[in-house]
Each structure stands twice: as structure tokens, then as C-alpha cells.
């Protein structure tokens, strides 16, 4: 299993992500944003979290136009997997590889805390190790995590089983930290090979650090 992790100026979760996938037995490499091509034998490309280009213009906007993103698109079009975490999710919506957009959090605060998430659909690689409605505890850390999509787009997401996770409380009741439409924390594309979420599974890999629920998520992609 070979995993490439994209690094833009301002990315800051690439080494956590590398640690997480190596812990699961993957062979990892860091991909530089100026590279216009990536190795063909990569199974998964992860766009890691952080603040690419200082979030200038809009979060993920400038990164979405960088040379590596053409290669990431080609990788996805070949049916291979892509995962965007936090800023990576923003980059994937800005490239239109995933629908919708991430706006400033409704109450304008940067939120950094553990949050519970409820599995909305396990009919995909990423969450196949879970049952629907399972609750997991994963850290969130974002300023622009307020997922927006119009009513038609939202219906389409549900019709195609593209909603992955909802924010919830420990009992699984919906609890919305940032104003996201329908409390959505993560989605995938129609083909179910491009995944994006605001929470950080790579920061939930060790019980001693608060949660190891991220292991089961990332294992699904292995």
C-alpha cells in the first residue's frame, strides 16, 4: 500500500498523517505542490490539513490551482483514492472534486476540540469498517468548516449515499459546532473514491492522546 501526502506552503499535518499511515503499515511519501505528476503506483493520495498559502483569498483556493492538483485529479479519474482532511477537504471543494464549499464557522470562532461524529453511510471504503450510526470521537481544528451546499445539491448527496459523517454528541444526537448544512462533517464523490472531512482522523491514532478512533477510519482506505 503506497500513500502520497501532499505538502503545500502552509500545510502542517503532513507528518502526523505520515505517522498515522505508517503505523497502519503503509509506505508513505511526501508530494511537493510544484510536482505536475505523481508516481503511478500510488494507491492513495492524502491532502493533509493546515493553512495552505495562509488561507489567502479563500481556504484552499490558491492550493487548488497548483500543479500537483492536476496530478491528483488524474489519479482520481483513474479510479484511485483521494482523501482530503480539513484544509485538504477545502482544497477538494475548491477543485470541484467534491461538491459544496466550506465557509467561515457560523459563530466565527476557530474551533479546536474533540468532537463526536456519527457514521451516515458505510457504503464506501473509508467507513466500511463501521456500522451506520456508530459514534466516533475525532478532533476538529478549523476556522472555515461550515459546509454549504444548496438544497438540490444536498438532496443529490443523500440520494447517492455521499454523506459520510454528521457532527453529534456522545449519544449520537446531532450537535452542530460550526453551522454546517445538516451538520455534515464529511462527504465523498459519487464514484466513492474521493473523500473529504473536516475532522482529523490522523490525530486520533493513540488512546494516550485522547482517542484512537481514527485508526478504524484510515484502515478502511488501506
Amino acid at each position: 500500500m503506497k500513500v502520497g501526502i501532499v505538502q503545500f506552503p502552509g500545510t502542517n499535518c503532513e507528518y502526523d498523517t505520515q505517522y498515522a499511515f505508517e503505523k497502519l503499515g503503509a509506505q508513505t511519501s511526501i508530494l511537493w505542490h510544484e510536482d505536475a505528476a505523481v508516481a503511478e503506483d500510488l494507491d492513495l493520495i492524502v491532502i493533509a490539513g493546515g493553512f495552505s498559502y495562509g488561507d489567502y483569498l479563500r481556504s484552499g483556493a490558491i492550493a487548488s490551482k497548483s500543479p500537483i492538483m492536476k496530478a491528483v485529479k488524474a489519479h482520481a479519474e483513474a479510479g484511485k483514492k483521494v482523501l482530503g482532511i480539513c484544509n485538504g477537504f477545502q482544497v477538494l471543494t475548491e477543485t470541484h472534486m467534491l461538491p459544496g464549499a466550506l465557509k467561515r464557522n457560523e459563530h466565527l470562532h476557530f474551533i479546536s476540540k474533540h468532537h463526536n461524529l456519527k457514521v451516515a453511510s458505510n457504503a464506501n471504503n473509508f467507513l466500511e469498517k463501521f456500522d451506520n450510526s456508530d459514534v466516533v470521537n475525532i478532533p476538529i481544528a478549523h476556522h472555515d468548516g461550515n459546509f454549504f451546499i444548496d438544497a438540490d445539491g444536498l438532496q443529490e448527496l443523500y440520494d447517492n449515499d455521499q454523506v459520510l459523517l454528521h457532527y453529534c454528541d456522545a449519544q449520537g444526537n446531532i450537535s452542530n459546532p460550526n453551522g454546517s448544512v445538516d451538520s455534515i462533517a464529511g462527504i465523498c464523490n459519487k464514484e466513492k473514491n474521493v473523500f473529504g472531512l473536516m475532522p482529523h482522523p490522523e490525530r486520533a491514532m493513540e488512546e494516550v492522546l485522547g482517542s484512537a478512533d481514527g485508526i478504524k477510519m484510515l484502515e478502511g482506505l488501506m
Partner: protein
Amino acid sequence: MTAIINISLKNGVLDSQGKAVHHALDSLHFENVEDVRVGRQIVMKLSQTDEAKALEEVTQMCEDLLANTVIEDYEIELVK
């Protein structure tokens, strides 16, 4: 030529910053404010002298990068 581009959230997309500014103005007793929208302005100097061509080019810039048309509208003003 100078292009002035105003970018704002579409109608129907909640503008949290506008709401916060409105609230702050209320607390300063500016009571005649009915609604506040916060946007972004980009000003650029262009070497293009043909207005139609400049408009076409700046529109493309907005579509490709400057605005996210999923949530934002843009207006372009050209000044000679």
C-alpha cells in the same frame, strides 16, 4: 485600466461576519442599520486597453480563481 472587483456571499448564504458587524453596530447604538454584508474587494491594474476584452478577461479570473461561485457573487467595475 483598473478593474475593481467586489465579491460577496450570495443572497441566501448566511453572512456570519455581516451579522456580527451588525450586532456590534447595534451595541454602539447605530439603530438605523437594517442589514450588513461583509465582502472582499480586489483592485488590479491591467495593461489591456480594450474594455470589452478586459471585462472578458477579468470575468474569467473571477470564475477560475477570485470568487467561489458556489457561495459567492462578483461584480466588476472598470475604470480608465
